[in-house]
């Protein structure tokens, strides 16, 4: 086999099962690719020894016929998942040197099923960002090249501040970049307002945020507890389905995690969508939407219609209020969730003359500016005198948003089709430096889904005029990820698999 990193996760699985390939070979190939791709800055920590040991153990299990569903498949792990004995910092300076002696439920599930850990992936600090530029470990570059630039120019840019290269999106930018650059077969990611779907859309990969409660949050560094949800990014819809089946499941250690059987998601790939009702929400047709996004959406409608789906116009009237409400709820929860990083028990400590100044010095040095901004917003909206005007109103809006979706589903809609992002990937250093809201607008199509706790998948559906990937989003009924996989696989097939960039790095 020439380059086994070009396989999809499903193809690699089948090759391993057919003993055409060993897990150690597959893992070594990925470790080699990672080494060559360090300039992209997708991984913050590589764990080659662990990876090879896990791969060897997988080979033994395959040989003895005891292989798990993900046996021997090398994957990357977003830095916010606690991994025992391994760098776990949510890419924040404040968790300096933190290596937990526990393993998150989601990663433990993946290892149980035989997956191999390649390392920890870069991300926006505490998952706060849409471009992976807020990471303490520096920005991640997308393997996609900006229009008019060649590999030679890009290699030079990688050595410098990466300005002009494209962002992979965020917060799961390391995951998306690594998957798109073939530095892993798939990656864990997490999504609070779009952090799986937007980077997937920016990099021509597939990402699903399952229903809130589908995956355990235990051992994931919390950003906004009522919105955070684990999910995979991979190169195909099928690969996402395979990974999600292992990641999901009940966990008594997370009170918000649901106790319901996990379906065989892969079985829904290729299932007919004939007669499925697909809703098109008029409110997602926002002012100033680029023509290429309009066209992408129309193409998606055409694909689904051709596959026998029924397209219906729907209304989700409170869509416009979702983004501002999200930027109240998420920072409010974050301001409280991040209070534990106080320099007392673990991570960074910057001494001070008393406890108060130690707190101040530690948190000033440990948190980046975007995290500090959101902590301040959160503390403000929860403070006496503002709580009702901001937090309580935002919660009411949240209820209205959920009801919008419930009404649509009550009319028989099976899934809702929207663009995943308002544009293609932008350049590193291009957005948000003067006005953070410019960056927040990236989440305009995705936050509603988190606010309502619904499943959402982003799937590549075409290219922009500049030749960059564009994604469509499908939003499902609660715990009906299967329909999303079925419908998304139709789009994937109709649009044709995206040709991911050849290595230039």
């Amino acid at each position: 086999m020439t380059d086994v990193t070009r396989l999809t996760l499903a193809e690699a699985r089948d090759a391993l099962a057919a003993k055409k390939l060993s897990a150690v070979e597959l893992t070594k190939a990925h470790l080699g690719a990672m080494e060559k791709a360090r300039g992209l800055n997708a991984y913050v920590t590589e764990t080659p020894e662990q990876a090879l040991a896990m791969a060897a153990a997988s080979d033994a299990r395959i040989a003895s016929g005891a292989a798990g569903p993900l046996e021997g498949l090398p994957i990357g792990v977003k830095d916010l998942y606690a991994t025992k004995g391994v760098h776990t910092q949510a890419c924040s300076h404040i968790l300096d040197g933190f290596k937990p002696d526990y393993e998150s439920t989601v990663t433990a599930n993946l290892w149980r099923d035989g997956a191999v850990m390649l390392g920890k992936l870069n991300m926006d600090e505490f998952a706060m960002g849409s471009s992976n530029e807020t990471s303490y470990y520096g920005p991640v570059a997308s393997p996609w090249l900006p229009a008019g630039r060649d590999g030679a120019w890009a290699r030079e840019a990688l050595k410098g501040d990466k300005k002009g290269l494209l962002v992979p999106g965020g917060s799961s930018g390391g995951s998306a970049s690594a998957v798109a650059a073939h530095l892993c077969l798939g990656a864990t990611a997490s999504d609070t307002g779009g952090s799986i779907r937007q980077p997937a859309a920016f990099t021509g990969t597939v990402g699903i945020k399952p229903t809130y409660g589908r995956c355990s949050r235990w051992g994931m560094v919390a950003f906004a507890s009522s919105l955070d949800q684990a999910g995979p990014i991979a190169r195909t819809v099928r690969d996402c389905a395979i990974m999600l089946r292992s990641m999901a499941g009940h966990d008594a250690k997370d009170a918000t995690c649901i106790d319901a059987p996990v379906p065989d998601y892969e079985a829904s790939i290729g299932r007919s969508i004939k007669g499925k009702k697909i809703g098109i929400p008029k409110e997602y047709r926002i002012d100033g939407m680029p023509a290429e996004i309009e066209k992408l959406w129309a193409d998606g409608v055409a694909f689904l219609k051709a596959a026998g789906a029924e397209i219906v116009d729907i209304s989700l009237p409170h869509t416009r209020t979702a983004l501002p409400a999200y930027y109240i709820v998420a920072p409010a929860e974050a301001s409280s969730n991040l209070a534990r990083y106080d320099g007392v028990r673990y991570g960074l400590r910057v001494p001070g003359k008393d406890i108060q100044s130690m707190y101040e010095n530690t948190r000033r040095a440990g948190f980046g500016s975007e995290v500090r901004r959101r902590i301040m917003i959160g503390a403000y909206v929860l403070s006496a005198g503002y709580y009702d005007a901001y937090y309580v109103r935002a919660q009411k809006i949240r209820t209205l948003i959920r009801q919008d979706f419930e009404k649509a589903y009550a009319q028989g809609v099976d899934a809702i089709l929207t663009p995943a992002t308002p544009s293609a990937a932008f350049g590193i250093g291009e957005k948000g430096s003067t006005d953070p809201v410019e960056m927040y607008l990236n989440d305009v199509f995705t936050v509603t889904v988190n606010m309502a706790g619904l499943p959402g998948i982003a799937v590549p559906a075409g290219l922009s005029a500049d030749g960059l990937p564009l994604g469509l989003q499908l939003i499902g009924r609660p715990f009906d990820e299967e329909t999303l996989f079925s419908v998304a696989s139709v789009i994937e097939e109709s649009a044709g698999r995206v040709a991911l960039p050849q290595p230039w790095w």
Partner: protein
Amino acid sequence: MNAPANPSKLIKGATGDWEIVVGMEIHAQVSSRSKLFSGASTDFGGDPNSHVSLVDAAMPGMLPVINEECIKQAVRTGIGLKAQINHRSTFDRKNYFYPDLPQGYQISQYKSPIVGEGQVIVDVTPTEQITVGIERLHLEQDAGKSLHDQSPTDSFVDLNRSGVALMEIVSKPDIRSAEEARAYVTKLRTILRYLGTCDGNMEQGSLRADVNVSVRRPGEGLGTRCEIKNVNSIRFIGQAVEVEARRQIGILEDGGSIDQETRLFDPARGETRSMRSKEEAHDYRYFPDPDLLPLEFDEAFVEDLARDLPELPDEKKARFMRDYGIASYDAGVLVAERASADFYEAVAKGRDAKMAANWVINELFGRLNKEGHDIVSSPVSADQLGAIVDLISEGVISGKIAKDLFEIVWTEGGDPRELVETRGMKQVTDTGAIEAAVDAIIAANPDKVAQAQAKPTMLGWFVGQVMKQTGGKANPQSVNDLLKRKLGI
């Protein structure tokens, strides 16, 4: 709030009478094996940081999961306080920074507590009973403990208590004196101990009180209150109310006004000191904890718990008065501790219940108090005391001899019935022997005989002489009867 003031409770100031108004927040540690949101042990006295889970230490990515036993304990307590049980309650985060608070917030119940309004009936004196309203009871996490005496330059933190379940029981401002405050906490502690929901151990910090004190002129609206934090004994609670009320009266009578603030009681100096003013008060930024779903249960859950509850002090007291015919105050004393009530019932069963009450309260409790024992470590068992009561009822010994017998049992132990035999303490009921003594005394004292015949109250002198002669063992009734007959009175 404007019930007429009880004149006997008022404090005389320089410019007239003042009424004290007190409300209390009692923090009672829930009796449970593990903490409110983690599996770590709640045992007292372990090495520092030996009972700490990842959740208690607020490690990244850790999540709280409700301990159902703590919920049951809170519901049981609510039933014991005759309070409304809320089938739906929520947990909120109270945000503030402190080294012994690892999460940076305390999980508490702010908006919707598990228990609503209830009441506690309090015996203040043998003749005075008051009812103190309960505003609410909610569950919350305890904090850890900062240790400042381990190093000259650093402080250390012990998280053993971090996350232990507390019930905060908030009273209405229905308390009007230091005495009432003490009686309220005593009664509340009794109820908690009966229920087994809190051990009530104030020395170990299982029960702490925040005492809100204000004063007002009788008939006026509520004055500005000060909150005295963390008072940890019933005696100190009384003292704190007293000194704080006097401090406030002093200020008001000098034309000043009370600043709403948090204060600390210093028992050594007998004063309260300002801890922080209202302006310095934290903004706790309460909001519902998104890691926890609302806590919901149905009426059947409550009924199951109610069915298995033990008899509570008020009901037990009523039953003692009804079944044993004892007075309200005596019954109240007996039921103050479940162990005392059980002891009393063991003594009273099948015996003269009033006599049993007298012996338990006056002889036994008196002696236990004097020697610093409690009922559990009593040197005299219920069986032994019961035997003594039997011996009196059967006329085998007199009440006076019974006290001597009690003394022997207390110090030496032994079976009272055997002791009476072996030590010759039996009452003499042999009329022959008594008659001989009576005759001898009458014969020796002709002058006294004449006096007694003129004035029958002189009979007592003769009784005394006979008892002396018989070493106290003569049956007093027989002596009386014989003397009356022989003296013709």
